[in-house]
């Protein structure tokens, strides 16, 4: 435990800015999760591994000599097809089954992904250098890597684009209709199978963008997927399904929490703190709901 951070205002500004920029990235992943959870009623444990795979696509481009920032365009395109393929192979068989089945099945997919990435890209921690430099604020006492600002900007851009797409396009309308009532949508001529495939594909594409951004701002490793899944799950529970501003705000809140936990508890407890926060949020939610139930009695 180390509370020095509260005595140094500049450190707090640093942690807050880092946290918010990181949180926007988390919110993008969480948006994908909310989308598929709302439409298909599936909790995808492999979400984080899709993110990491997206990151490795950008990293491969970096190795090939292309600037990794182009990954935010290439990676979602590849990941969309990965998502659709995954849907055709496995997910379509668990869509209307028990939720635990989907959790376990995607857990299996996550293990396969982790191991395959381990084979292909090795078990080293890697990062793609964007060479964007850093921005100094407040007389050089706060440093912000430009790549983080870039990633937050791209995340917001894609999120807004997706919202507009969901509102305006034909597929977006079909997705929203299916989310509201899959049977009614089917009766009215929506090919729900296609909608599901597209939803899962879009989710994977969002993961791809987030992954490409993570490859230049943070680090990549085949086995760090699960924390991203848990983060996005947490954000979705706090924000609720289909409430985009809330997703953005709770994403930033999570980012802030993590940066401060990092300073206060020490870096070795960072992931532990994230998982404990998940437990606390779920328990808090359970007591809040049980109060409501007693009230109804």
């Amino acid at each position, binding site marked *: 435990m180390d509370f020095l951070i509260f005595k140094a205002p500049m450190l707090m500004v640093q942690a807050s800015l880092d946290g918010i920029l990181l949180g926007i990235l988390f919110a993008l992943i969480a948006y994908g999760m909310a989308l598929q959870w709302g439409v298909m009623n599936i909790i995808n444990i492999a979400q984080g591994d899709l993110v990491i795979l997206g990151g490795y696509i950008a990293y491969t481009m970096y190795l090939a000599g292309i600037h990794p920032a182009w990954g935010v365009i290439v990676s979602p395109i590849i990941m969309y097809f990965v998502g659709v393929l995954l849907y055709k192979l496995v997910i379509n068989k668990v869509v209307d*089954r028990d*939720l635990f*089945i989907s959790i376990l099945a995607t857990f299996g997919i996550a293990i396969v*992904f982790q191991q395959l990435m381990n084979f292909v890209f090795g078990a080293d921690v890697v990062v793609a250098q964007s060479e964007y430099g850093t921005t100094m604020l407040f007389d050089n006492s706060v440093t912000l890597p430009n790549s983080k600002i870039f990633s937050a900007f791209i995340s917001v851009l894609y999120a807004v684009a997706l919202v507009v797409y969901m509102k305006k396009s034909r597929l977006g309308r079909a997705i929203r209709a299916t989310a509201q009532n899959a049977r009614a949508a089917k009766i009215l001529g929506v090919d729900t199978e296609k909608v599901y495939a597209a939803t899962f594909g879009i989710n994977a594409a969002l993961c791809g963008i987030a992954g490409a951004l993570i490859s230049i701002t943070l680090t990549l490793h085949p086995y760090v997927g699960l924390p991203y899944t848990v983060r996005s799950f947490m954000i979705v529970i706090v924000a609720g399904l289909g409430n985009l501003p809330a997703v953005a705000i709770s994403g930033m809140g999570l980012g802030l929490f993590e940066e401060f936990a990092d300073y206060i508890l020490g870096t070795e407890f960072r992931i532990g703190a994230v*998982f404990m926060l998940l*437990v606390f949020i779920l*328990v808090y939610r*359970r007591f809040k709901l049980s109060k409501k139930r007693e009230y109804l009695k």
Partner: protein
Amino acid sequence: MGNIKQKDLILYSGLIILGLAAPYLFSAFKVQLTYLCVLIVLAMTWNLQGGEMGYNTFGNILFYGLGMYLTASVQVGMFFPLAEWTESGGEKTFVHTTAQYFQGIGVGLLVAAIVPAIVAGAIGYAILGLRGHYFAICTLGLGIAAGEIAGGIEIIGAGQGFTTPPFPAEIVDNEARGKFFYFLSFALLIGTFVFVKYIYGSRFRLILNAIRDNEDKAEAMGIQTMKYKITGWMCSAFFCGLAGGIMGGLIGYIDSTDVAFDGREMGVFMVLMAILGGKGTLWGPVIGATLFHFFKEGLWTFILGWQYVALGVLIVVIVVYFPEGLMGWLREKYPERFGEVIDEKDRKAQVELK
């Protein structure tokens, strides 16, 4: 009726004799046999949760890891300063005498059984109020958080691991170590089986099933569901802790995320074994664990490096295509054997409808 009892008697005594003779018959495979016993115990206790109560937990690994750390810590801490032991990597500085070793592991296992059960009781009220997938994800989080936190605590070795006390050097017989752990785990297996079988014949099981089938209705019928859920979880935790303690001694080295809170292996294995054998049956987890262990040991070496890919694919295949498990499949095929009376006319009518 008496006839069936006799058949059971023959079966059980046969299995016990086989179990007792196994380390002499297959003396090269003692470690594998110990693993098998522990796996069966884990699958059976998971089945109490996931199969009977309908609370699919990924968190039983928490008790397993806790038991492992507790046994080793008590075993060391009873005689030597724990912090210095972990710092020096054990072994060199301090040596357990034979009496100290067995006293230590005895007390350690006792603690490893009781403390996880108390922990389960303490967190049960908060955690078991969650339903369905929230419970599953919450317990998944708990297991991983425990591993991450244990990896940051200095006194139990933090990231570099914890060497458990080596088997006393005075016992020269190399076989003795393997036999000791095998019989320990076999005793645990018998204890667990007897306990679970007792539960299967009791009212407690019916209550757990009522909770699984419809918790709100069970509550409306006047069952204090929370009380029974916590009791069930505490039973699981008790046996998981013991299993962990034995495993820690057998492996000889505890790592926070790869051995103790090993959600990626043990935590998934126990779910998979129970589902493979058939959730909600007495023999399902036993058969599932045995099959899985044979499959794992037989195949792992041939597909070295690819074993996790195989594991992941196996999970997907079992869960997607085989969710009822082996016992469920047998039940579908030979319902008479399971004591279900079938109306032939009704069955024919059903077939025609399909």
